[in-house]
């Protein structure tokens, strides 16, 4: 019994999720027509606009939405602790039959941590850095269960063991910085479950973690739910995680719940447009290699027609113009160069980790890495944090230098280029960074940003560069009217398009893409990936693509290398690696991709 689409918006559907004839008091939490707004300089802004849902006892309800959908605000409203300026305007939050709205702070405090646990988003910042982790769990026990100091300490160690921390006795006396991200998240889960609450709200509990760690942490939550019969509100941006773990799903967009129901119903037969789009673009759920769109193929054929932008490419000087002559003349993309645009062999990069009080330890961030990128194709490196994938990419792009090994570009050794010769290499190798908020100078106009490489290489005059910038904006599907805006006025996806346009301006052959979509919402991710695939065909580009997300990798790669601890464990064509993984770790990575239980 599901109320579809518009029904949920009216605010009458409080029981819509678990309406299967269940009595109302089987619901631990009932939210009715909740409105939340934030005070800003230009008046109140609504963040949550009349949502209603219920959480049945012992069930997991996922709230899924992209950034700005209001899902995090909702989770904070459920314990009545909003960020400053936030207020609940109307509606009710009934927990075990009592409305939290009119409760005093004192009453709320006995509920928070005691009967409603909360697992926050960012494990690296959510623990007090100056307090031992055992004490941070014991604090909740002493407050709510009134345990004495010794009993609380013993119980804290037991909880650490229950959330799967090895050697809990020793861990309890450690400080947060001595634990890994996954362990810290387990401590936070321990705090949330410490007093055996009826309800736990988990706000993106695993989005800051590596995918294999994410899987273990989510398994741990599943286990706690089963053992303690806890109800959970799982807030996530990742539809695939919801698909794997939740009994019910509510999809939020723009502060409203646009669709809710059992997980199976929502995922297999979404009725709302937004849900459909979300299900389609979730990389873990149904990803496949993207193919160039028809318009891109059409443009490829006429790309040699006299467009402004293509004029800039033959502006490549003949070899004599490059200062040292180290880079051979590049006579257009169609000319026959080496089959492999990039070859790296036996790269090694070490970092000395200095320890407090002398002594150092050597970290082999990149350990004997070799691969080739065939011209016109996409070579991807996948790995978790600390795998060395980004360092490898930076060396390949000659941003960083290796301790040993060679990088050769288009058949020429570029390993030790420096100064002007290295600068000339930038005409042919460009980089797109992960964070579109950091990689664009906030003080520059979009037009200036895109034209910057042209200016650096003295291509054309000011009017010409402005025209090229506008044309490039069209190529990345942005309106040329954005040319005079500043980056801060653009959304994340728009900024990443600008960064891509900038990398194209000078007409490079190889683009190194370092996690180019991981800072973006899933629906935007797919658009950017599609854009990259189209541009590759139009301009004959080669990509070196770095990502932690196998779902994304699958959508764009021709060849894949899997890295861990600085080493390439396995490499091959995308199909081989994904369909027939040879290395145990690759199989583990594939198994950890969320969304496998669903549909």
């Amino acid at each position, binding site marked *: 019994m599901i109320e579809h689409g518009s029904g949920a918006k009216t605010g009458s559907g409080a029981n819509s999720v678990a309406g299967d004839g269940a009595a109302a008091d089987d619901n631990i939490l009932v939210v009715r027509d909740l409105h939340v707004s934030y005070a800003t300089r230009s008046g109140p802004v609504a963040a949550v606009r009349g949502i209603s849902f219920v959480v049945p006892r012992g069930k997991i309800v996922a709230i899924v939405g992209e950034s700005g959908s209001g899902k995090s605000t909702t989770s904070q409203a459920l314990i009545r602790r909003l960020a400053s300026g936030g207020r609940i305007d109307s509606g009710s939050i009934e927990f075990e039959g009592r409305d939290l709205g009119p409760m005093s702070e004192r009453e709320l405090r006995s509920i*928070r*941590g005691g009967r409603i646990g909360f697992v926050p988003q960012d494990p690296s910042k959510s623990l*007090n850095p100056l307090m031992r982790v055992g004490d941070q769990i014991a604090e909740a026990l002493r407050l709510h269960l009134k345990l004495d100091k010794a009993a609380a300490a013993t119980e804290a160690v037991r909880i650490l063991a229950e959330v799967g921390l090895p050697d809990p006795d020793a861990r309890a006396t450690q400080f947060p910085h001595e634990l890994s991200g996954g362990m810290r998240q387990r401590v936070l889960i321990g705090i949330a479950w410490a007093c055996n609450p009826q309800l736990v709200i988990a706000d993106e509990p695993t989005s800051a973690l590596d995918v294999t760690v994410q899987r273990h942490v989510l398994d741990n939550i599943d286990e706690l739910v089963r053992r303690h019969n806890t109800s959970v509100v799982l807030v996530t941006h990742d539809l695939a995680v919801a698909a794997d773990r939740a009994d019910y799903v509510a999809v939020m967009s723009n502060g409203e719940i646009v669709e809710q129901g059992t997980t199976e119903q929502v995922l297999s037969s979404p009725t709302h447009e937004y849900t459909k789009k979300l299900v389609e673009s979730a990389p873990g759920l149904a990803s496949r290699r993207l193919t160039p769109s028809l318009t891109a193929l059409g443009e490829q054929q006429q790309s040699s027609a006299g467009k402004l932008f293509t004029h800039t490419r033959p502006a490549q000087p003949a070899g004599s113009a490059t200062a040292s002559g180290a880079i051979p003349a590049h006579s257009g993309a169609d000319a026959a160069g080496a089959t492999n645009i990039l070859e790296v062999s036996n790269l090694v990069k070490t970092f000395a980790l200095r320890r407090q009080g002398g002594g150092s330890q050597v970290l082999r961030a990149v350990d004997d890495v070799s691969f080739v990128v065939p011209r016109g194709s996409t070579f991807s490196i996948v790995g978790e944090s600390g795998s060395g994938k980004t360092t490898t990419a930076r060396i390949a792009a000659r941003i960083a230098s290796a301790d040993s090994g060679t990088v050769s570009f288009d058949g020429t050794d570029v390993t030790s280029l420096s100064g002007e010769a290295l600068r000339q290499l930038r005409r042919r190798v460009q980089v797109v960074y992960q964070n579109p908020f950091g990689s664009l100078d906030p003080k520059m106009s979009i037009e200036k940003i895109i034209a910057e490489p042209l200016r650096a290489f003295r291509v054309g005059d000011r009017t010409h560069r402005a025209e090229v910038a506008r044309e490039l904006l069209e190529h990345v599907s942005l309106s040329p009217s954005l040319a005079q805006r500043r980056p801060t006025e653009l959304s994340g996806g728009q900024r990443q398009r600008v960064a891509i346009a900038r990398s194209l301006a000078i007409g490079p052959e190889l683009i190194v893409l370092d996690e180019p979509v991981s800072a973006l919402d899933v629906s935007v991710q797919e658009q950017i990936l599609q854009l990259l695939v189209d541009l590759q065909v139009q301009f004959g580009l080669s990509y070196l693509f770095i990502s932690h997300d196998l779902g994304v990798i699958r959508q764009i790669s021709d060849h894949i290398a899997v890295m861990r601890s600085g080493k390439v464990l396995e490499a091959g064509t995308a199909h081989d690696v994904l369909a027939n993984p040879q290395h145990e770790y690759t199989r583990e990575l594939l198994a950890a991709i969320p969304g496998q239980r669903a549909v």
Partner: protein
Amino acid sequence: MTQVKAWAGYLLPKLGQFLFVVVATYTLVFVLVHFLPGDPLIAALAAKGGASTVIDPAELDALRVQYGLDGTLWQQYFGHLIAAAQGDLGISIATGVPVTEMIGRAFPFSVQIASLALLFGVTSAVLITFLAYAAPWPWLRQLLLQIPPFGIAVPAFLSGLLLISVFAFTLGWLPSAGARSFDAAILPAITLALPVGALFFQVFSSAVLEAQNSPYVFTAVAKGVPPRRIFTKHLLRNALLPSITILGLLIGYLAGGTAVVETVFSRDGIGRMTVNAVLARDINVIQGVVLVVGAIYALVNLLVDVAYGFIDPRTRIGGGVPSRARLGAKK
């Protein structure tokens, strides 16, 4: 054993830095005094005896020897440095008394008001921050937060004279001058506490504000921890940590501030002694005072560094093998 080694590895560079600052401070003053135009001895004698003082060259040379101003600049530089290391800062040109003795006599008076001022200033900064944190109404919080910027803008001579005119002359509660009794230290200490407390407040309150919006405080709230305990257990320690690093800066402020405050309250002390030395162009005294103040500043910074090593578990000494998390973070 490894513990000792770890401490040595941590302390030795800091100790070197301490020595460097002291020697470099001495060098800076030496350069300023000797390379700016004018003969320092003649200027001092002129200040002593009036502009028309005429001294015959032989007598002048004798005086140069007496005040350690003879020989080449290199000889003077190293001679004074070695003497200073042995605790001899030369002889005052204006009074003929050894500088070490003058500083030793004036020092306790200044330390008295400076430490009281530090105590008043830091306590009230923490108190105002807590009140602002706990204030139930936004307007009250705003009002409390306006006090410290005001404290920074008040000239010390103004606040000093106001305090004198109210508490000494109008109410007659406290003495307006002198340094003989403890009572006499209260008004100067309050005067000094104003800018020092305000400076500390700026750093401390912004650290509290930052900590207040931090995810770990959210975790504490979600745990059901009451506000007062959040302030004492979670905010205070985290916010004090960055705040103690400006302690050295505060000592510098105090040293400068005593010059005005001791003049306003007609108190003996380092500050007033320095002012008199400058009026008499008595470079030996000036040099000695700056050296001592620079050394104290460097010493306080050294102590702050050591304290940091103790308090913050992230920089705690001898903490075993770095965990995987640290390796990952360094990437």
